[in-house]
């Protein structure tokens, strides 16, 4: 030890002022010998030494796991690596023990031996105390044995142990990371969000600890290792290995320094992972040549030459002994597949699952996509150096991703065992060849190594004569793939095409799909480089034809851009259009590409291709089914209406269903869906457009007695009046012939005039009676129609909808306020206490008040009936003055002698008035309502802009979009008041009835979209004329469920159930309430209401606003369905409330 080091040690020992300087010297300037000697002389568990020099190497408690040090920072990366290596060397015994325990633990965990694994974790803890390594594995074992509950318990234990915020944060992510089903992207997003505001160096450390990865390439070893001093020795060691692989995989500037560090520690740590990493990062001869590498190379040779039994036996033995070696597992699975020994892969242990998913990936079966994602998750969850990286690389190989090469490179440094293809992908030719050369030097007996070296030599005649045991098909494949990677495109295309030709005859090979895809992917790249766009697009489409999911394996975006560069040539072929469908993220782009292709054949829509016999039928079916979707077709100039698009899509699907047996089921399913959607659209249109209808035949039938009574009263009084008049005239003429006083004659004349006056009075009385019945008949009257189809739960919801959808409606006194307030806080990025936010809320409160007042006015004043007795300001004006009545009487009714003619004439007048009122309402909605809503929004917009706050832009945006939306809202509402006759619809199934009701309810309550289930089990079909009535019955029930369920929006679930039994039909709606008690109370309330209604249905109640709509349901069944014995029932079971209507099938359905 030199003098300065000696003094430094003494200064630290004395704990004086010079201690800090001494520590700085030892850490940053002393050579490794002095560092080691100093570390030997100083007590390792002394707090002062830990804080100043080494950090806490062994954590006694969880709180110690993240231990902030005060040691002088080492700014030089080389120095920081040297220091860390010295620390490792000083504790080489501990590292060796850790490596031995870790190896046993990895093996136990992958074999699912959880008791043994837990025991090993306890031994590890006894030896080294707590560590991040231990915490992460505790979570994994908990997840594997008892699931999420066990993970939560673990977190709780850490909380009770007061582990400190940093470890608690990390533990939370270890827990999430251990989750079996959580996708990788979600974990990364969650971490990115959580770490957004964190200190950069801490963020780097945490990313490395949690993801075992760096999202950014900009890091310095000195910074990472400085942060690593906060964690125990074991975790520093594991972190260092990962840092070295990341550096090697990204060709980081500090990779060489890290490799040198590895060289130093490999002499004492006895870690095969370090040996392999050190071998592959360095340039010298291999150190790691014994053990399983030799065995696996023998397995590789056996596999290459088709001796699958031997390959299987060797690789299985290695896989059982070191289950973390991907090369062993993959070779074993390949051999098992060739030998049809797939049963040997069965089991539920992690390693068995690894094999099964590898099998799926290699077989490219229907589970391949799920399996490749499973494997990626497995790699994340099992934090094993030689498993995580290679599995990420495997994932990258099987999905076309931009970061693929980098992941493959990192994976190759983590394989843990040499094999001929470790450095084939993601590396330059030079790196790959250098690795192979060093392998051949180290393993001269390996046939596979030599074969892979020779097969890529330029001008090698394939198949190679020196390797007669390697089948020609395999030789062509390897020669093609390797040449393609070296951009020897002629050799590559020759060999790959030769391989594909040979493969056609051996598609029974279990790996045929996999190898064919590999070959086609390489071939597509070769053709792209050769500018052969036509062949390139053909190869991609052939791959798609063979296995549609394979397209994820191709960089289709890049390939299609290439096609676009040569569009004139490429677009002459159908493959161009298909590739567009596979590559374009925008349906409009796809549409233009398809049209470009169609233009070359002079057709204006895809169905025009059906007559072009030169086009391959299967490709045409793919184009029709997969590419020419609705969203692509609706950009075609020739298909400029929704109905044209629908017809075209249906025509294409019919063609596919007829001509392509492999795709006909998919086509038929979509045809059914489209037809159902079309029906639903028509049904909703019909409901929207027929809100105000007058069913005169129904009205007449229901109210005939009252109508007839009014007429006969009028007729009798008219008759009586006529007799009185003739009597009076007789009297007058008698007096006129005599010489009586003129006063008497005048009296008689007045009497006659009174008779005439009483005639119009009689008519007015009869007309008023009939009009009032026309307006207020419990089910068929205009008011019942306005009440049940416009006012009841509809108009207010409709007007609120654009505001509610954008969370602009909020009152200060409602429970939803908190949710909406937090929504805007989030969107406007408002922190607590910002005064502007209060102003924003005030603007929204004011807006809400105004909109609600307008909606109430529309409902309570505009959409009301005005008559002489009601004197409302309703826009449905049915007031008639004496002159109008006299005109009607004189022109049409004076000589009427039967009820029907009389009624028809009056109905004509009332219908004319209805039409006129509808026009008035439409005008009012389009102009006045729109203006008033727009003014309210403009006012809110001005208020927002006056705050001059850039963060309020999202609110401004939403107000503007709401301003646009209310135009549509008013247009839609105006359409409700189109006059329509109740025309008959065809019979329909009850499913459509249910879907229409749900559609109506969800349109009006956008937050509840997708929260309804439909169950329909009945062979009956509803008669078309009852469609509207039945839809409204279900709509009322759904509205009640939505309005009164009181559960949070996120947990609301409703169901519509329609069943039949014998001649009884049951229509029901179910929903869950907040509690059992709430359900019982709701049912009780409904029963009381029904009891009241059942005794005597009061017509006034039918048209009364609000309420539950039950009166309307009873009126519908009683008057429209003509059933008096229909039953409405309400029941509850725990929190579930169900309300149902039981009625007879006869009459309404068949």
């Amino acid at each position: 030890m030199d003098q300065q080091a000696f003094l430094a040690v003494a200064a630290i020992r004395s704990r004086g002022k010079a201690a800090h300087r001494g520590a700085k010297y030892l850490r940053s300037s002393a050579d490794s010998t002095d560092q080691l000697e100093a570390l030997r002389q100083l007590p390792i568990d002394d707090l002062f030494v830990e804080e100043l020099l080494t950090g806490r190497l062994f954590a006694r408690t969880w709180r110690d796991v993240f231990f902030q040090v005060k040691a002088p920072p080492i700014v030089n990366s080389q120095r920081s690596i040297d220091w860390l290596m010295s620390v490792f060397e000083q504790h080489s015994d501990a590292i060796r023990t850790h490596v031995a325990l870790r190896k046993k633990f990895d093996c136990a965990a992958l074999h699912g031996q959880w008791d043994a694994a837990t025991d090993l974790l306890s031994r590890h803890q006894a030896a080294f105390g707590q560590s991040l390594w231990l915490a992460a594995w505790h979570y994994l074992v908990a997840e594997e044995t008892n699931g999420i509950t066990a993970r939560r318990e673990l977190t709780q234990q850490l909380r009770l142990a007061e582990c400190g915020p940093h470890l608690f944060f990390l533990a939370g992510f270890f827990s999430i990371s251990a989750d079996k089903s959580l996708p990788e992207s979600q974990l990364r997003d969650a971490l990115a969000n959580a770490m957004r505001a964190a200190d950069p160096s801490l963020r780097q450390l945490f990313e490395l600890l949690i993801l075992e990865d760096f999202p950014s390439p900009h890091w310095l070893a000195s910074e990472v290792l400085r942060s690593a001093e906060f964690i125990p020795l074991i975790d520093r060691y594991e972190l260092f290995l990962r840092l070295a692989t990341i550096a090697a995989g990204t060709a980081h500037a500090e990779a060489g320094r890290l490799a040198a560090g590895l060289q130093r520690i490999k002499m004492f740590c006895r870690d095969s992972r370090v040996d392999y990493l050190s071998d592959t990062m360095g340039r010298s001869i291999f150190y790691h040549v014994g053990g399983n590498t030799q065995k696996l190379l023998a397995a590789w040779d056996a596999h290459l030459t088709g001796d699958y039994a031997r390959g299987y036996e060797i690789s299985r033995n290695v896989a059982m002994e070191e289950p973390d070696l991907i090369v062993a597992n993959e070779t074993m699975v390949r051999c098992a597949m060739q030998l049809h020994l797939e049963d040997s892969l069965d089991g539920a242990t992690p390693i068995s699952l690894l094999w099964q998913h590898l099998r799926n990936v290699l077989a490219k079966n229907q589970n391949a996509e799920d399996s490749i994602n499973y494997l990626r998750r497995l790699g994340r969850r099992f934090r094993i150096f030689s498993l995580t990286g290679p599995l990420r690389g495997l994932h990258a190989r099987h999905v076309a991703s931009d970061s693929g090469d980098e992941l493959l490179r990192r994976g190759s440094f983590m394989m843990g065992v040499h094999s001929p293809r470790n450095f084939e992908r993601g590396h330059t030719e030079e790196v790959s060849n250098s690795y192979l050369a060093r392998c051949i030097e180290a393993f001269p007996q390996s046939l596979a190594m030599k074969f892979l070296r020779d097969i890529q030599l330029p001008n090698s005649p394939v198949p190679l004569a020196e390797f007669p045991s390697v089948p020609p098909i395999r030789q062509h494949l390897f020669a093609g793939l390797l040449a393609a990677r070296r951009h020897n495109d002629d050799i590559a295309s020759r060999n790959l095409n030769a391989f594909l030709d040979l493969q056609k005859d051996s598609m029974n090979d279990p790996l045929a799909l996999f190898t064919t895809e590999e070959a086609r992917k390489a071939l597509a790249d070769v053709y792209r480089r050769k500018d052969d766009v036509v062949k390139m697009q053909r190869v991609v489409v052939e791959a798609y034809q063979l296995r549609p999911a394979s397209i994820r394996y191709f960089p289709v975006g890049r390939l299609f851009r290439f096609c676009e560069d040569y569009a004139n040539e490429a677009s002459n072929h159908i493959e161009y259009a298909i590739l567009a469908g596979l590559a374009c993220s925008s349906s409009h782009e796809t549409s233009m590409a398809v049209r470009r292709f169609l233009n070359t054949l002079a057709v204006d829509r895809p169905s025009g291709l059906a007559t072009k016999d030169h086009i391959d039928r299967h490709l045409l079916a793919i184009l029709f089914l997969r590419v020419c979707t609705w969203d692509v077709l609706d950009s075609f100039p020739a298909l400029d209406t929704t109905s044209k698009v629908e017809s075209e899509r249906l025509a294409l699907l019919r063609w596919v269903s007829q001509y392509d047996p492999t795709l006909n089921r998919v086509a038929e399913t979509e045809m059914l869906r489209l037809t159902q959607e079309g029906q639903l659209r028509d049904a909703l249109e019909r409901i929207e457009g027929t809100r105000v209808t007058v069913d005169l035949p129904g009205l007449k039938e229901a109210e005939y007695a009252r109508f007839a009574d009014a007429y006969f009263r009028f007729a009798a009084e008219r008759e009586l009046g006529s007799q009185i008049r003739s009597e009076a005239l007789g009297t007058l003429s008698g007096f006129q012939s005599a010489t009586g006083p003129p006063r008497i004659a005048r009296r008689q004349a007045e009497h006659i005039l009174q008779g005439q006056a009483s005639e119009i009075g009689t008519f007015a009385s009869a007309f008023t009676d009939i009009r009032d019945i026309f307006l207020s008949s419990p089910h068929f009257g205009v008011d019942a129609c306005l009440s049940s189809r416009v006012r009841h739960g509809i108009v207010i919801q409709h007007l609120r909808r654009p505001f509610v959808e954008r969370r602009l409606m909020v009152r200060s006194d409602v429970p939803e306020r908190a949710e909406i307030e937090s929504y805007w806080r989030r969107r406007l990025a408002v922190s607590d206490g910002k005064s502007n936010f209060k102003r924003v809320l005030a603007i929204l409160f004011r807006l809400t008040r105004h909109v609600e007042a307008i909606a109430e006015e529309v409902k309570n004043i505009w959409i009301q009936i005005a008559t002489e007795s009601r004197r409302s300001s309703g826009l449905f004006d049915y007031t008639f003055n004496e002159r109008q009545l006299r005109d009607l009487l004189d022109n049409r009714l004076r000589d009427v002698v039967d009820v029907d003619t009389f009624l028809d004439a009056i109905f004509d007048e009332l219908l004319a008035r209805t039409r006129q009122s509808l026009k008035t309402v439409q005008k009012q909605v389009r102009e006045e309502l729109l203006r008033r809503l727009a003014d309210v929004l403009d006012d809110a917009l001005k208020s927002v802009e006056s705050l001059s706050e850039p963060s309020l832009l999202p609110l401004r945006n939403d107000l503007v979009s709401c301003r646009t939306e209310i135009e549509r809202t008013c247009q839609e509402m105006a359409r409700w008041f189109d006059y329509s006759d109740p025309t008959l619809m065809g019979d329909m199934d009850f499913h459509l009835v249910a879907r229409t009701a749900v559609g109506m309810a969800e349109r009006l309550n956008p937050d509840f979209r997708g929260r309804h289930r439909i169950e329909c089990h009945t062979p009956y079909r509803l008669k078309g004329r009852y469609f509207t009535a039945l839809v409204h019955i279900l709509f009322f029930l759904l509205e009640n469920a939505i309005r009164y369920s009181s559960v949070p929006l996120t947990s609301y679930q409703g169901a519509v159930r329609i069943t039949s039994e014998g001649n009884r039909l049951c229509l029901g709606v179910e929903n869950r309430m907040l509690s059992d008690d709430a359900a019982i109370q709701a049912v009780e309330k409904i029963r009381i209401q029904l009891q009241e209604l059942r005794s005597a249905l009061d017509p006034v109640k039918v048209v009364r606003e609000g309420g539950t709509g039950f009166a309307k349901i009873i009126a519908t069944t009683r008057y429209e369905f003509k059933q008096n014995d229909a039953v409405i029932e309400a029941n509850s079971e725990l929190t579930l409330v169900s309300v149902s209507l039981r009625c007879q099938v006869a009459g309404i359905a068949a």
Partner: protein
Amino acid sequence: MNVLIIDDTDYKISGLKAVLANCDFVTEVRVAKSFQSGTRALRQFKPDLVLLDMTLPTTESARGGADGRWRLFGGKEVLAEMRFSNIAAKVILITQFDHYGEHPHRVESKTLIAEMKRDFAEIVVGGVYYSNIDSIWVSRLRDMVIAARRNL
């Protein structure tokens, strides 16, 4: 100069028409309220200038209301159609939003307009922020219409 307005919002259309009415060189103004009617009018009417909204319905129903799906970037698609059909009219983008879409797909209007100007440099003159509560946009639009006329 013939002008085509492709926009589905009535109040905006009225505002734009009022500005064009004060440009004496504008001879005819037509309106299309959807992507389909817009592209049809482009082919048939052959306007010199197009005032183009960004978000459009696909088509219009027989009753005149919006129909088909909403195209968030329908204006961009109209521009692509113009290129596809070699229609050389000048285009002014009209927007009243600060951004389109929501995180993580949110695109600022400024960025979008800049992108359109870059990708369709031969036809896009620029963009104007329409507002119903102020009139700054009026002079900006008029200047842009005049500039477009000069470049015809």
